[in-house]
């Protein structure tokens, strides 16, 4: 791999994992505070500052920097050429890092306790909004870097099939440009001028509509690298082959096209949008389950091949025959398991009427953590173990510890999130710092609250082991020379694919039309109607 690209990838990954560790520790504080079992640490102000910081670090900082770092590695290792502009990649890193530091100051001083979602009339200090915007601007530069790298490669290699890992990375970059435009507009025209005092009031309905444009597809922005690792790293590491390259391309295309115009399932209970548009977005939400099913099938089929090559017999004997001492195998299988559990929760959330059963309850937090902190993050961790020897030139300090750490992460995540699902069904609201009620309802929550603390503690131990392993590997004197060219090969490697499966022009056109249909009238009506603005809450 080219050294300049290696160093910028490495810098991005370290920022990601530093944020991850701090956020994990904050998470443990939050479950302890929220349980009400430790009155001495109860503080509403500290809790909401912590939740906001935890969310920003995990949801925006870990993800954005990991995606950028993994993208730089993927671009150079699969295309076998330098980045389009390594200098610009460093600019992206510094802009995103500067924005993160800028946002951190109000977060840590309690002036941005708005729960990491951009929902006015909750109001944060302008430095938070400007810092978060800079983080997104840095990611836009990364998108440009990925798109230009592929365009140049295609010019240099006419008629060649873009490697699947890079095809997925480019799909993610394009999807992120589409989806982050919503929050970008909200920031530039609503939140930043409002927080600077240039506007007295803000329209929360419009802001929530614009944020919904970003809010759901951002989950797929985070999930894309996990899927890319499942398709292009996992089968090879497991000792097999990718079941189908084309299925991966179809899944990436579907994620790009379907995931953006579906954000209203976050607004089912909002009054400013009509039932018809919510129903339209619900159909899209169920549609986006298809690429996930395709991914689950293709990855499992690849693993079945690997297991049978290792001697697995019968209908399910291949599962036991897999190499469970390999971190990527453990992470891949556990990620799929948590995806199934989290996906079921998502089906309930997405069902328009049934959403009332769980809306704004702790169920939603449980679902979100299973999909993000479970499926997505466990694949980030395993990918880091896979990449570290390639980036540092040193052997991973302890593979055994890596496997143990990934099992701990899975167990911790299940112990944390399954009680949250139960708490949601028992009526516990999400986003509360305490439950100071003395009623039979709250008493039912006790055992689940205790379990979530145990889960949080397990996760912090797991996060510590992860960071320790990376640090020990970097300090190790055991050199390792690993090839960058060890991507999974398909059972039938594609010699050629139809043009739409090797590019994105057609799909961009479809997204554009669908976005106009799904968001055109809902946004225009809010601009035409003379809705009264809202005064700020909080800071």
């Amino acid at each position, binding site marked *: 791999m080219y050294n300049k690209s290696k160093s910028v990838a490495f810098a991005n990954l370290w920022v990601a994992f530093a944020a991850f560790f701090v956020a994990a520790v904050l998470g443990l504080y939050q479950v302890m505070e929220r349980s009400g079992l430790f009155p001495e640490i109860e503080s509403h102000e500290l809790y909401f500052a912590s939740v906001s910081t935890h969310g920003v670090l995990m949801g925006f900082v870990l993800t954005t920097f990991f995606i950028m770092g993994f993208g730089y590695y993927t671009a150079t290792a699969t295309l076998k050429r330098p980045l389009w502009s390594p200098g610009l990649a460093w600019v992206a890193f510094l802009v995103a890092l500067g924005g993160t530091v800028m946002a951190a100051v109000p977060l840590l001083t309690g002036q941005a306790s708005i729960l990491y979602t951009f929902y006015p009339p909750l109001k944060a200090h302008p430095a938070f909004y400007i810092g978060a915007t800079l983080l997104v601007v840095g990611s836009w530069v990364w998108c440009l870097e990925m798109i230009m790298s592929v365009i140049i490669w295609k010019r240099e290699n006419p008629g060649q099939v873009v490697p699947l890992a890079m095809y997925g990375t480019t799909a993610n970059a394009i999807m992120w440009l589409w989806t982050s435009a919503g929050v970008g507009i909200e920031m530039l025209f609503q939140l930043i001028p409002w927080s600077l005092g240039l506007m007295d009031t803000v329209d929360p309905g419009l802001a929530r509509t614009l944020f919904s444009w970003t809010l759901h597809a951002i989950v797929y922005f985070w999930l894309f690298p996990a899927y890319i690792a499942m398709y292009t790293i996992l089968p090879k590491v497991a*000792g*097999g*082959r990718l*079941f189908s390259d084309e299925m991966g391309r179809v899944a990436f295309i579907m994620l790009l096209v379907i995931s953006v115009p579906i954000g209203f399932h976050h607004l089912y209970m909002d009054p400013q949008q009509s039932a018809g548009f919510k129903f339209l977005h619900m159909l899209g939400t169920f549609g986006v389950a298809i690429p996930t*099913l395709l991914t*689950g*099938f293709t990855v*499992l*089929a690849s693993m*079945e*091949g690997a297991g*049978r*090559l*290792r001697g697995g017999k*019968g*209908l*399910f*004997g*291949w*599962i036991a025959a897999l190499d469970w001492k390999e971190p990527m195998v453990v992470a891949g299988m556990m990620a799929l398991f948590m995806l*199934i559990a989290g*996906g*079921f929760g998502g*089906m*309930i959330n997405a*069902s328009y*009427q*049934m959403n*009332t*059963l769980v809306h704004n309850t702790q169920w939603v937090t449980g679902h979100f953590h299973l999909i993000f902190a479970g499926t997505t993050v466990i694949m980030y961790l395993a990918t880091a173990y896979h990449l570290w020897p390639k980036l540092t030139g040193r052997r991973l300090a302890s593979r055994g510890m890596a496997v143990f750490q990934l099992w701990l992460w899975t167990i911790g995540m299940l112990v944390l999130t399954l009680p949250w699902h139960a708490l949601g*069904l028992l009526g516990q609201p999400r986003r509360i710092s305490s439950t100071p009620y003395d009623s039979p309802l709250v008493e039912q929550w006790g055992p689940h609250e205790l379990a979530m603390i145990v889960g949080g503690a397990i996760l912090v131990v797991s996060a510590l082991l992860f960071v320790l392993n990376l640090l020990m590997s970097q300090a190790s004197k055991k050199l390792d020379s690993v090839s960058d060219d060890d991507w999974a090969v398909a*059972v039938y490697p594609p010699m050629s694919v139809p043009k739409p499966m090797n590019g994105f022009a057609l799909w961009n056109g479809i997204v554009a039309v669908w976005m106009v249909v799904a968001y055109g009238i809902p946004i225009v009506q809010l601009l035409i109607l003379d809705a009264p603005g809202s005064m700020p809450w909080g800071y």
Partner: protein
Amino acid sequence: MTELSEEEQRRILEAPPRGTWALILVVGIAMLLGWLYFFFGLFMSHGPVA
């Protein structure tokens, strides 16, 4: 894996993924039953909000 000839490896890799189909079927049925339980058992039985 090293004990298998290339021909055997190819035969295994090109075989239909029966185990995966079975697993997907089990998961699909479980999810459908779970959804039905939530809809009829929890949501509909809850009745209208007073």
